[in-house]
Protein backbone atom coordinates (compact mmCIF):
# COMPACT_ATOMS: atom_id res chain seq x y z
CA UNK A 1 0.00 0.00 0.00
CA UNK A 2 2.81 2.34 0.99
CA UNK A 3 4.67 1.49 -2.22
CA UNK A 4 1.58 2.33 -4.24
CA UNK A 5 1.23 5.69 -2.47
CA UNK A 6 4.87 6.49 -3.18
CA UNK A 7 4.40 5.59 -6.86
CA UNK A 8 1.29 7.82 -7.03
CA UNK A 9 3.16 10.71 -5.39
CA UNK A 10 6.10 10.31 -7.77
CA UNK A 11 3.70 10.31 -10.73
CA UNK A 12 2.00 13.47 -9.45
CA UNK A 13 5.34 15.24 -9.11
CA UNK A 14 6.65 14.26 -12.52
CA UNK A 15 3.77 13.63 -14.92
CA UNK A 16 1.00 15.94 -13.76
CA UNK A 17 2.75 19.26 -14.49
CA UNK A 18 3.27 18.06 -18.05
CA UNK A 19 -0.35 16.94 -18.37
CA UNK A 20 -1.53 20.24 -16.89
CA UNK A 21 0.17 22.11 -19.76
CA UNK A 22 -2.72 22.81 -22.07
CA UNK A 23 -2.57 23.58 -25.77
CA UNK A 24 -0.63 26.64 -26.81
CA UNK A 25 -0.80 28.85 -29.84
CA UNK A 26 1.26 27.62 -32.79
CA UNK A 27 4.57 29.43 -33.28
CA UNK A 28 6.33 29.82 -36.64
CA UNK A 29 9.74 28.13 -36.84
CA UNK A 30 11.42 30.97 -38.75
CA UNK A 31 10.65 34.54 -39.73
CA UNK A 32 10.71 33.49 -43.41
CA UNK A 33 8.17 30.72 -42.71
CA UNK A 34 5.96 33.26 -40.93
CA UNK A 35 6.02 35.68 -43.89
CA UNK A 36 5.33 32.89 -46.40
CA UNK A 37 2.42 31.47 -44.39
CA UNK A 38 0.92 34.89 -43.63
CA UNK A 39 1.01 35.71 -47.36
CA UNK A 40 -0.54 32.36 -48.34
CA UNK A 41 -3.31 32.79 -45.75
CA UNK A 42 -3.64 36.61 -46.02
CA UNK A 43 -3.54 36.98 -42.26
CA UNK A 44 -1.67 39.37 -39.94
CA UNK A 45 1.48 38.44 -38.05
CA UNK A 46 1.66 38.62 -34.27
CA UNK A 47 5.28 39.09 -33.18
CA UNK A 48 6.21 38.96 -29.53
CA UNK A 49 9.62 39.67 -27.94
CA UNK A 50 10.70 38.25 -24.60
CA UNK A 51 13.67 37.95 -22.26
CA UNK A 52 14.36 35.41 -19.53
CA UNK A 53 13.93 36.84 -16.03
Amino acid at each position, binding site marked *: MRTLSLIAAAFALTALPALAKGP*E*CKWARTWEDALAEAK*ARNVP*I*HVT*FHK*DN
Partner: protein
Amino acid sequence: MDSSVYANKDFVAASKRWVNVYCSKDSMHGTEKVGDQEMCKLHPGIKCEDHIACNQSAGGLYFKGSFGAPATVWCMPDGKEIGKHQGGMASKQVIEKMAEAEKACGPGLDQDAYDFLLGKTEAGDKAANDGKQKEAVEAYTAIVKTMGKNPAAKSWVEKAQAGLDRQVELAKGQIEEAVKLKDSGDFAKAKEMLKAVQVSFKGQPVAKEADKAMADVTAAEKAAKK
Protein backbone atom coordinates in the same frame (compact mmCIF):
# COMPACT_ATOMS: atom_id res chain seq x y z
CA MET B 1 2.67 36.54 -20.83
CA ASP B 2 4.22 33.11 -21.42
CA SER B 3 1.75 31.42 -19.10
CA SER B 4 -1.02 34.04 -18.80
CA VAL B 5 -1.55 34.76 -22.49
CA TYR B 6 -0.17 32.10 -24.81
CA ALA B 7 -1.83 29.17 -23.02
CA ASN B 8 -5.11 31.03 -22.42
CA LYS B 9 -7.83 29.05 -24.19
CA ASP B 10 -9.50 32.13 -25.72
CA PHE B 11 -6.13 33.33 -26.98
CA VAL B 12 -5.23 29.90 -28.37
CA ALA B 13 -8.54 29.78 -30.27
CA ALA B 14 -8.18 33.34 -31.61
CA SER B 15 -4.50 32.87 -32.51
CA LYS B 16 -5.52 30.43 -35.27
CA ARG B 17 -6.56 33.50 -37.26
CA TRP B 18 -2.96 34.85 -37.42
CA VAL B 19 0.63 33.71 -37.75
CA ASN B 20 2.50 33.87 -34.44
CA VAL B 21 6.21 34.52 -34.00
CA TYR B 22 7.98 34.17 -30.64
CA CYS B 23 11.28 36.03 -30.39
CA SER B 24 13.81 35.66 -27.59
CA LYS B 25 17.59 35.66 -27.65
CA ASP B 26 17.66 33.83 -24.30
CA SER B 27 17.82 30.10 -23.66
CA MET B 28 18.48 29.97 -19.91
CA HIS B 29 14.95 28.60 -19.42
CA GLY B 30 16.21 25.32 -20.86
CA THR B 31 14.74 22.57 -22.99
CA GLU B 32 12.52 19.55 -22.60
CA LYS B 33 12.44 16.32 -24.55
CA VAL B 34 9.47 15.99 -26.90
CA GLY B 35 9.73 12.68 -28.75
CA ASP B 36 13.39 12.50 -29.70
CA GLN B 37 13.82 16.30 -29.95
CA GLU B 38 15.01 18.89 -27.45
CA MET B 39 12.32 21.57 -27.55
CA CYS B 40 12.05 24.93 -25.77
CA LYS B 41 10.84 24.40 -22.20
CA LEU B 42 8.66 27.54 -22.32
CA HIS B 43 7.10 26.74 -25.70
CA PRO B 44 7.58 23.07 -26.63
CA GLY B 45 6.20 23.62 -30.13
CA ILE B 46 9.48 25.27 -31.14
CA LYS B 47 13.18 24.87 -30.36
CA CYS B 48 15.22 27.53 -28.56
CA GLU B 49 17.28 28.02 -31.73
CA ASP B 50 13.99 28.86 -33.53
CA HIS B 51 13.07 31.75 -31.18
CA ILE B 52 16.69 32.94 -31.14
CA ALA B 53 16.74 33.01 -34.97
CA CYS B 54 13.33 34.76 -35.09
CA ASN B 55 14.67 37.36 -32.64
CA GLN B 56 17.67 37.97 -34.91
CA SER B 57 15.49 38.27 -38.02
CA ALA B 58 12.62 40.33 -36.64
CA GLY B 59 14.12 42.28 -33.74
CA GLY B 60 15.81 44.99 -35.80
CA LEU B 61 12.76 45.47 -37.99
CA TYR B 62 10.57 47.02 -35.31
CA PHE B 63 12.89 48.38 -32.59
CA LYS B 64 16.06 50.41 -32.79
CA GLY B 65 18.67 49.77 -30.08
CA SER B 66 17.58 48.32 -26.75
CA PHE B 67 13.90 47.97 -25.94
CA GLY B 68 11.84 46.72 -23.06
CA ALA B 69 10.53 43.16 -23.10
CA PRO B 70 7.94 41.87 -23.32
CA ALA B 71 6.99 43.74 -26.46
CA THR B 72 4.29 42.95 -29.00
CA VAL B 73 4.05 43.95 -32.67
CA TRP B 74 1.08 43.39 -34.96
CA CYS B 75 1.72 43.60 -38.67
CA MET B 76 0.49 42.97 -42.19
CA PRO B 77 1.18 39.65 -43.99
CA ASP B 78 4.32 41.18 -45.55
CA GLY B 79 5.64 42.13 -42.11
CA LYS B 80 4.82 45.84 -42.40
CA GLU B 81 4.14 47.17 -38.90
CA ILE B 82 0.59 48.21 -38.01
CA GLY B 83 1.24 48.88 -34.33
CA LYS B 84 3.35 47.87 -31.35
CA HIS B 85 3.33 47.91 -27.56
CA GLN B 86 6.14 47.67 -25.03
CA GLY B 87 5.27 46.01 -21.74
CA GLY B 88 2.96 43.20 -20.78
CA MET B 89 -0.47 42.78 -22.32
CA ALA B 90 -3.49 40.75 -21.26
CA SER B 91 -4.74 38.12 -23.72
CA LYS B 92 -7.85 40.22 -24.35
CA GLN B 93 -5.71 43.24 -25.36
CA VAL B 94 -3.63 41.18 -27.78
CA ILE B 95 -6.79 39.68 -29.30
CA GLU B 96 -8.24 43.20 -29.77
CA LYS B 97 -5.08 44.50 -31.46
CA MET B 98 -4.90 41.46 -33.72
CA ALA B 99 -8.57 41.91 -34.63
CA GLU B 100 -7.69 45.43 -35.85
CA ALA B 101 -4.88 43.94 -37.91
CA GLU B 102 -7.29 41.36 -39.40
CA LYS B 103 -9.59 44.16 -40.55
CA ALA B 104 -6.64 45.82 -42.30
CA CYS B 105 -5.79 42.55 -44.11
CA GLY B 106 -9.28 41.58 -45.28
CA PRO B 107 -10.55 37.98 -45.53
CA GLY B 108 -7.96 35.44 -44.44
CA LEU B 109 -7.66 31.71 -43.83
CA ASP B 110 -7.58 30.44 -40.27
CA GLN B 111 -5.08 27.76 -39.31
CA ASP B 112 -7.53 24.86 -39.67
CA ALA B 113 -8.70 25.97 -43.12
CA TYR B 114 -5.08 26.51 -44.24
CA ASP B 115 -3.98 23.08 -42.97
CA PHE B 116 -6.99 21.50 -44.72
CA LEU B 117 -6.21 23.26 -48.03
CA LEU B 118 -2.50 22.50 -47.84
CA GLY B 119 -3.12 18.83 -47.03
CA LYS B 120 -5.77 18.28 -49.70
CA THR B 121 -3.82 20.19 -52.38
CA GLU B 122 -0.68 18.15 -51.71
CA ALA B 123 -2.68 14.91 -51.63
CA GLY B 124 -4.49 15.80 -54.87
CA ASP B 125 -1.31 16.79 -56.71
CA LYS B 126 0.57 13.68 -55.53
CA ALA B 127 -2.31 11.37 -56.48
CA ALA B 128 -2.58 13.05 -59.90
CA ASN B 129 1.17 12.63 -60.51
CA ASP B 130 0.99 8.98 -59.42
CA GLY B 131 -1.97 8.31 -61.73
CA LYS B 132 -4.33 7.63 -58.80
CA GLN B 133 -7.41 9.19 -60.35
CA LYS B 134 -9.94 8.41 -57.61
CA GLU B 135 -7.77 9.88 -54.83
CA ALA B 136 -6.98 12.98 -56.90
CA VAL B 137 -10.65 13.59 -57.67
CA GLU B 138 -11.61 13.11 -54.01
CA ALA B 139 -8.97 15.56 -52.76
CA TYR B 140 -9.74 18.29 -55.32
CA THR B 141 -13.50 17.83 -54.91
CA ALA B 142 -13.19 18.16 -51.12
CA ILE B 143 -11.53 21.56 -51.59
CA VAL B 144 -14.09 22.82 -54.10
CA LYS B 145 -17.06 21.64 -52.03
CA THR B 146 -15.78 22.68 -48.59
CA MET B 147 -14.10 25.97 -49.47
CA GLY B 148 -16.02 27.07 -52.56
CA LYS B 149 -17.82 29.87 -50.76
CA ASN B 150 -14.85 31.08 -48.69
CA PRO B 151 -13.52 34.28 -50.34
CA ALA B 152 -10.13 33.82 -48.68
CA ALA B 153 -9.74 30.41 -50.33
CA LYS B 154 -10.48 31.67 -53.89
CA SER B 155 -7.04 30.95 -55.39
CA TRP B 156 -6.88 27.52 -53.70
CA VAL B 157 -10.33 26.61 -55.01
CA GLU B 158 -9.36 27.77 -58.52
CA LYS B 159 -6.25 25.57 -58.41
CA ALA B 160 -8.28 22.59 -57.17
CA GLN B 161 -10.89 23.17 -59.90
CA ALA B 162 -8.10 23.25 -62.51
CA GLY B 163 -6.76 19.95 -61.12
CA LEU B 164 -10.27 18.49 -61.25
CA ASP B 165 -10.75 19.73 -64.84
CA ARG B 166 -7.50 17.98 -65.87
CA GLN B 167 -8.81 14.72 -64.37
CA VAL B 168 -12.14 15.15 -66.19
CA GLU B 169 -10.27 15.60 -69.49
CA LEU B 170 -8.35 12.39 -68.80
CA ALA B 171 -11.64 10.63 -68.01
CA LYS B 172 -13.17 11.82 -71.29
CA GLY B 173 -10.14 10.35 -73.06
CA GLN B 174 -10.75 7.07 -71.23
CA ILE B 175 -14.39 7.05 -72.38
CA GLU B 176 -13.33 7.65 -76.00
CA GLU B 177 -10.79 4.84 -75.67
CA ALA B 178 -13.50 2.54 -74.24
CA VAL B 179 -15.76 3.28 -77.20
CA LYS B 180 -12.92 2.30 -79.58
CA LEU B 181 -12.38 -0.92 -77.61
CA LYS B 182 -16.12 -1.67 -77.85
CA ASP B 183 -16.02 -1.12 -81.61
CA SER B 184 -13.11 -3.54 -81.87
CA GLY B 185 -15.01 -6.12 -79.80
CA ASP B 186 -12.92 -5.92 -76.60
CA PHE B 187 -15.95 -5.50 -74.34
CA ALA B 188 -14.23 -6.60 -71.12
CA LYS B 189 -11.47 -4.00 -71.41
CA ALA B 190 -13.98 -1.31 -72.41
CA LYS B 191 -16.10 -2.08 -69.33
CA GLU B 192 -13.05 -2.03 -67.08
CA MET B 193 -12.07 1.47 -68.29
CA LEU B 194 -15.60 2.80 -67.92
CA LYS B 195 -16.00 1.28 -64.46
CA ALA B 196 -12.88 3.15 -63.33
CA VAL B 197 -14.42 6.45 -64.49
CA GLN B 198 -17.77 5.64 -62.84
CA VAL B 199 -16.07 4.90 -59.51
CA SER B 200 -13.62 7.82 -59.57
CA PHE B 201 -16.18 10.45 -60.60
CA LYS B 202 -19.27 9.16 -58.79
CA GLY B 203 -21.97 11.88 -58.73
CA GLN B 204 -20.22 14.08 -61.31
CA PRO B 205 -21.35 14.81 -64.91
CA VAL B 206 -18.54 12.82 -66.52
CA ALA B 207 -19.70 9.72 -64.60
CA LYS B 208 -23.05 10.03 -66.41
CA GLU B 209 -21.18 10.02 -69.73
CA ALA B 210 -19.45 6.84 -68.55
CA ASP B 211 -22.86 5.35 -67.57
CA LYS B 212 -24.18 6.00 -71.07
CA ALA B 213 -21.08 4.52 -72.72
CA MET B 214 -21.33 1.50 -70.41
CA ALA B 215 -24.94 0.94 -71.53
CA ASP B 216 -23.78 1.08 -75.16
CA VAL B 217 -21.01 -1.45 -74.46
CA THR B 218 -23.44 -3.82 -72.70
CA ALA B 219 -25.91 -3.55 -75.61
CA ALA B 220 -23.16 -4.15 -78.18
CA GLU B 221 -21.90 -7.15 -76.19
CA LYS B 222 -25.43 -8.66 -76.12
CA ALA B 223 -25.84 -8.08 -79.85
CA ALA B 224 -22.48 -9.71 -80.55
CA LYS B 225 -23.49 -12.84 -78.60
CA LYS B 226 -26.68 -13.35 -80.64
